[in-house]
């Protein structure tokens, strides 16, 4: 996404309420900095993330989308993150086929205790997306004002 003529990657992070959102809070409590490009949307479980949301984000100009959930086996709803894993591996391989590099999409497991992991993941992911440059492939130019 261009901000004042300068490329700044925009990252949309979907975080599950029970693990990753709390992990992000912990990163905040411990003052572990990560880029402001990352904007978090809270969902009850990573399995609430409809592939449609990800397509929408890319369409509206996001440069990377990351979904964070509880570790496998630790899902608050028992099995939600397994659905996420399957759905997203399908979606991401399709997006890759369409030319959305697979580095722009990621599923990551971050527990409520892993503030450091959350910050590290976001730093690393933002860096990877920044290196790829702007998402032009799926961005809908009609959405631009």
């Amino acid at each position, binding site marked *: 996404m261009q901000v004042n003529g300068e490329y700044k990657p925009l990252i949309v992070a979907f975080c599950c309420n029970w693990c990753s959102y709390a992990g992000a*809070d912990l990163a905040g409590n411990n003052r572990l900095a990560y880029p402001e490009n990352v904007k978090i949307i809270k969902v009850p479980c990573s399995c609430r993330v409809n592939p449609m949301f990800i397509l929408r984000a890319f369409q509206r100009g996001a440069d990377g989308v990351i979904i964070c959930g509880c570790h496998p086996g630790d899902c608050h709803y028992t099995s939600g993150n397994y659905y996420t894993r399957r759905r997203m591996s399908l979606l991401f391989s399709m997006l890759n086929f369409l030319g959305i590099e697979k580095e722009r999409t990621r599923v990551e497991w971050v527990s409520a205790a892993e503030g450091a992991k959350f910050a590290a993941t976001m730093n690393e992911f933002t860096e990877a997306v920044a290196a790829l440059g702007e998402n032009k492939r799926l961005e809908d130019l009609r959405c631009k004002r």
Partner: protein
Amino acid sequence: MQRIGVFVCWCGSNIAGTVDVQAVSDALAHEPGVVHSANYQYMCSQAGQNLIKEAIEEHKLTGIVVCSCSPRMHEATFRKTAAAAGLNPYMVEIANIREQCSWVHKDMATGTEKAIILGKAAVAKVNLNAPLTPGESPVTKRALVIGGGIAGIQTALDIADAGFPVDIVETKPTIGGKMAQLDKTFPTLDCAACILTPKMVDVAQNENIRIFSYSEVTDIKGFVGNFDVTIKKRARYVKEDICTGCGLCTEKCPMKNVPNEFNLGMDNRRAIYIPFAQAVPKVATIDPEHCNMLKNGKCGVCAKVCAAGAIDYKQQDEYISEKYGAIVAATGFNPISMDKFDEYAYSQSKDVITSLEFERLTNAAGPSSGHLVCPSDGRHPHTIVFVQCVGSRCASCSEKGKEYCSKICCMYTAKHAMLTRDKYPDTEVYVFYIDVRTPGKNFDEFYRRAAEEYGVKYIKGMVGKVSPENGKLHVQASDLLADKQLHIEADLVVLAAAIEPDKSARPLATMLTASMDTNDFFTEAHPKLRPVESPTAGVFLSGACQGPKDIPETVSQAGAAAAKVIGLLAKDKLTGNPCVANSNELMCNGCSSCERVCPYGAITYVDKEFRMPDRTTKVRRVASVNEAVCQGCGACTVACPSGAMDLKGFATKQIIAEVDAICK
């Protein structure tokens, strides 16, 4: 159209330090639907809440956005505020501009920009919010305590005292846990058994408490107030209600060489055994791995000597199903295995022992009847070396040990050293330490007594190697303060092994859907404000399963957990989570996709009559959500191919509005 009020909190300087709060409230004032925008120093304070209430009334607000700390912190507070002003509490959205903005970004310009975007996303969402009413569910007035150590015992006693029935499930044949194995307790040096066993008897005699010993929890279903639990009562081959605990069978059993786990394998027990004299329930148990009768069908001595006729070789595992309103995890801890620390020669010499083994050696009921001896040959040790932090505080070698401090080792080592010098003044006692950590009432005084009055030689530095030589233990260590290498010929080396959560905690957490940290300690709902609750509603934490703890701390946490359980069980009805799935029957095509992914079985299909445009009626099969059972994960919303399934509070439209606001 909504009438939205935006309230930006400064949180003192926590937010205002990195975010220009005035700019945020100004920017959000022009968002669609926003009719009022304000900022204040502390929104969560009484004055801040009044500000919100007044604005709701004055501007006839239909929804509010609070830009403040995490919703995990104060969402409930602001929902209550809204409700007090007559607004539906689910018309409140929080933009997390503290934990996820001001605390992680240093620059005012970027912080403010991000805070505005987060605020816009929340405004976009609240524009699509609808008032929600939570359903109600009954509370089963019975609690389950998993683990029968001092934590579980105290929690169960406190809950039972309030008049609620409690069940304790313990995997061992007796309750008592680790504390039953201890000799003396710091810093008062009173005997562990003398203060624990009366409590164990209280548990046995309390009418409100049932003990399921030698049992384990195999399945947990349901939710707060309504857990369905299956308990497997393992066959102990002795009828519990008939056995009198006389112990004759444990004397006559011919299988004499079974390692006694209560004494950590330092002596032997029989195949039929009672772990220790004060066991509760005091009932014998047959160890099926070592019993000749159960293995080969030859023996039967215990059945012959049992006057009560309690032996039953054909006993089967029994499964018990029970309903509970609250569950307390009290699974406790274990010392870590010493396998990876062979530099201390634990596997090479019997005279290298762990602190818990030392505890048994000095216990009057232990394998040496309380005489401190070298386990290899029974001689009296003259030089004893205590090594602290074995596996604790291992930052650089975390695959070997644990990164955290095990908390109790400094104090129990001071106790061991002091008691040894007190009873055997001829011994030389060395303690090697990284730091001595003694925060706690009367703790530092205790440690100083050990070092100053009892002449325990405290040496800052670590032991590098222990090698058995000529029946002695050659200890190589460094003295960091004197900056020299030490060589000590020791008779006994005692390792203060790090403690870790019991192995049963991880599968239990999975059954409870309770979260754990990377070390397998249970995570608390809030590290400071809700330390005895799990983030999973209805699950509470007691004792060392939440983190390393000594006995006084464990007992206070156990009492706190009990108070929380009593608070829950005292309610007749619980309000549920209104953020549940709901199906648009007109769009549902009855494909069953949602039913298949639902982890709770909350979706069923019903045949429903629909009026068609030509005034005929048609019966169609449509999904129907049981709102009392639905937990609101949203798996079904994604599985639904026709877009009929949606989640209240996290509706597809709402999340898309958030995505759009962020990507604008």
